[in-house]
């Protein structure tokens, strides 16, 4: 089928391994994303706080700089880099990840569904699971780049600068950093993919992602106020994540309790709720991502 011959020839050369083909979707999605200047700006802004965090770690471990800044002695605790510091980094970065997800997630599937391209994907040796995996990988990679990856780099920086065996006494933090980021990234990704599969307009879809976080939160607070309980917090996904995070970092969640009041949802319940949201989003994706719609009746 060479261009100059204008003749059809079948393809007989090598093929890529089937397991790797989901990544084609990821690659093309990233290529499309990076065409948008707004996205690039958003990504840069999402990474900028890490520079401040890194600067703080550098100052905290550099007595000369502290003396030059004339802060040494006056506020020794000001530059403490311990568990709570990494907890703050995680909270800040996961909220930034939420914003990034609201921009990127809603367009991932809707573009394929708007003009019926899904049957073209599924008429190839490519399953719905591969399709979801390919789209999920976009968000997973992107959100990882602003959550646990920079956090681990900062952890490495602190370990390198602190010495005195700091790394060995804090090594356990790697697990909550990765695990808590993973559940947050999965939940955000599945919610926005599910929304993207239902809502075609970007602005509306972004709004729906916001709404899917804030409306349940409001409903939960109403439930708490009416019933005099704290179980309504199960609908506050940010709070659930912060509970998981603080428990993972072995920190007391007093601050969270004092903000929301009336005690605390058990951490296993918070995990259970976040996993349930992921499964429910998968269920929505399963009903929506079909090569052909079946009309009942």
């Amino acid at each position: 089928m060479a261009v100059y011959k204008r003749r059809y020839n079948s393809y007989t050369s090598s093929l890529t391994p089937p397991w790797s083909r989901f990544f084609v979707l990821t690659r093309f999605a990233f290529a499309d994303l990076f065409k948008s200047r707004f996205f690039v700006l958003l990504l840069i802004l999402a990474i900028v706080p890490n520079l401040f965090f890194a600067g703080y770690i550098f100052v905290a471990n550099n007595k000369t700089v502290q003396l030059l800044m004339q802060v040494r002695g006056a506020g020794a605790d000001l530059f403490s880099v311990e568990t709570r510091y990494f907890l703050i980094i995680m909270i800040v970065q996961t909220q930034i990840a939420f914003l990034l997800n609201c921009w990127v997630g809603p367009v991932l599937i809707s573009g394929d569904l708007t003009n019926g391209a899904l049957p073209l994907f599924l008429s190839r040796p490519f399953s719905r699971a591969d399709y979801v995996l390919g789209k999920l990988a976009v968000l997973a990679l992107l959100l990882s780049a602003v959550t646990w990856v920079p956090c681990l780099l900062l952890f490495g920086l602190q370990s390198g600068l602190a010495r005195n065996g700091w790394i060995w006494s804090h090594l356990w933090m790697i697990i909550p950093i990765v695990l808590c980021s993973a559940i947050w990234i999965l939940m955000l990704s599945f919610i926005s993919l599910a929304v993207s599969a239902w809502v075609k307009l970007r602005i509306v879809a972004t709004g729906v992602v916001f709404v899917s976080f804030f409306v349940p939160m409001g409903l939960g607070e109403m439930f708490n106020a009416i019933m005099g309980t704290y179980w309504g917090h199960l609908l506050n996904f940010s709070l659930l994540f912060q509970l998981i995070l603080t428990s993972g970092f072995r920190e007391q969640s007093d601050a969270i309790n004092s903000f929301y009041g009336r005690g605390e949802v058990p951490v296993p319940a918070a995990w259970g709720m976040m996993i349930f949201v992921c499964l429910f989003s998968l269920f929505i994706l399963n009903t929506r991502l079909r090569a052909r719609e079946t009309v009942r009746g």
Partner: protein
Amino acid sequence: MTPTIELDGLEVQLGGRTILHSLTGVLKSRAIGLLGPNGAGKSTLINTLLGFHAPSKGSARVLGLNSHTSGKALRSLVGYMPENDAFISKMSGVRFVRYMAEISGLPSDQAMERAHEAFVYVGLGEARYRPVGTYSLGMKQLAKLAQAIAHGPKVLILDEPTNGMDPPARKRLIELIREIREASDICLLLSSHLLRDVEETCDEVLILRNGQIASICNLVEERRANRKFLELETLGAEATFTTALESLGCECAVFSSGRIKVVMPDSVEIREVFKVAADRGVQIRRMNHRRDSLEDIFLNAMEQTGAADGRL
């Protein structure tokens, strides 16, 4: 040789309704046409062959692969051009085809090369860098064909390929389909409302009506049979002429006014009929092949399975 399509009591239910009722048949030709009125189940059959719908009973096989249990293996052989719009509007044509080819398993560089080739081949070379969303209806059809052939499939499934095309574009597309069929060992399954499209591209037709097989007809054999059936109008010594034809192995039936119907055996060619006529001094004033067109076959099939209501 493995049949192209085998249907073994295939039944498909969708939304609680039975759409395909116990379809059984074997289609061996390389180019198969799928005909039937609206709602006959053509698209459902195609979707079932692609593994989009699971059979509630029976099975369907394409090139020996079960559409349900070996769906992925089967789809690795297939190029599919759907009936409805199917594209990513913001992508340029060539990028869209490359994307689809890569999903089919072509390495990136090969996919790019084949995407360009496919686009030029279908006649959209000049428009390949434009977003697919800006294409006209006919161009979108051609872009769909390009994505269906870019990865070099063994089976090409075309669902209403000439929908929305003007006559010259339709002619060009039919020529392309015939070229593709003849240039390689590709198998073709073409579903169309237009009998002419099927007649021009296919060797065998499966006619569906109300989810049942109305007829399976081998057009090649039908055409061959038609070639051997002559209607003559003669002037001269009919009796000696028919006797001479019968001595060649032909069967003749003589009617009034010199009209003769002749069924020729495979070994006899038409020029021998002329030669016999010339030897006997018989003038052949008119000669017709029986022309049992696909339309006749289709209408017969419709009549046999129920009242033909003229709808296609």
